């Protein structure tokens, strides 16, 4: 595994860690959840469209099939 992901390494307890850039952390998680929920909605819409199509096909075929 190489560098750029900046794999977190040792954690020296005595070094005080600067608390910066919380906005970026929040943004990252927010974007992730936006993607998860957004795609979930897309999935539901696709399913509804598919079901509607099956329904209309069935009814066009005369209820049965």
């Amino acid at each position, binding site marked *: 595994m190489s560098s750029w992901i900046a794999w977190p*390494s040792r954690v020296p307890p005595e070094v005080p860690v600067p608390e910066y850039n919380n906005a970026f952390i929040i943004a*990252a998680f927010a974007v*992730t959840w936006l993607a998860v929920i957004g795609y979930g909605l897309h999935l539901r819409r696709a399913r509804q469209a598919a079901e509607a199509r099956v329904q209309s096909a069935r009814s066009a075929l005369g209820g049965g099939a």
Partner: protein
Amino acid sequence: MESVVNRAATAAPMASREVRWTTVGVAGLVLLVAAQVYGVLTSPPDRDMGHLQKIMYVHVPAAWNAMLAFLLVALASLRYLWKGRLADDLLAASAAEVGMLLTGLTLALGMIWGKPTWGIWWTWEPRLTSTAVLFFMFVAYLILRTFVDDAERRAQWSAVVGLLGALNVPIVYMSVRWWRTLHQMQSSPMTLDSSYTWPLRANAVALMLLMAYAVAHRYRSALMTQTADELMDRLALKGTPGGSRA
């Protein structure tokens, strides 16, 4: 060509499969929340990055699962070319859609991580650059699908495009890596501290479950649409002895 109509007629096993996939989806969602909370609360801040390290828990799983989605596209494409079943093409398309989302997410998160860490939004790093290439290939694949009307032609063409794209991914990765190492010294690889591994793994598994659910869900919607089309075909061919599929 198999008949999706006949498959849909056996509704009972289909329904139980649906329940099983829903379980996977719910489990993935719950695990994702749990793993994120666990990771954010328990893992100590990194020496250099501080709490920014926590972006890793969403970024790296997205990248891993994007690769997985691409593998799925390649395998489904290969199987389509081998067996000629239209369902495999729909599976490849479903995986490609989820893969495009995941590569897009990986890129967005990479930027969000890069800006505070290095002060730049974009870095020409092999992994990130390969992911970008992968993203473009997913997009091209999905655009190709919208440009072709005939189902069989669309399936054959996109299977071929998916397969060639899969061949290209390792070559792109290697070439970008060489390109980078030639241009600047690569920083020494670091080992991941054990306090980060478990949250990372849990997050990756959670996202994988969600991805599997999403692909399965999208795939079944596509199958349903095809079922509807086949029912309409029956109508169009009503009373024809040749109406049954060969």
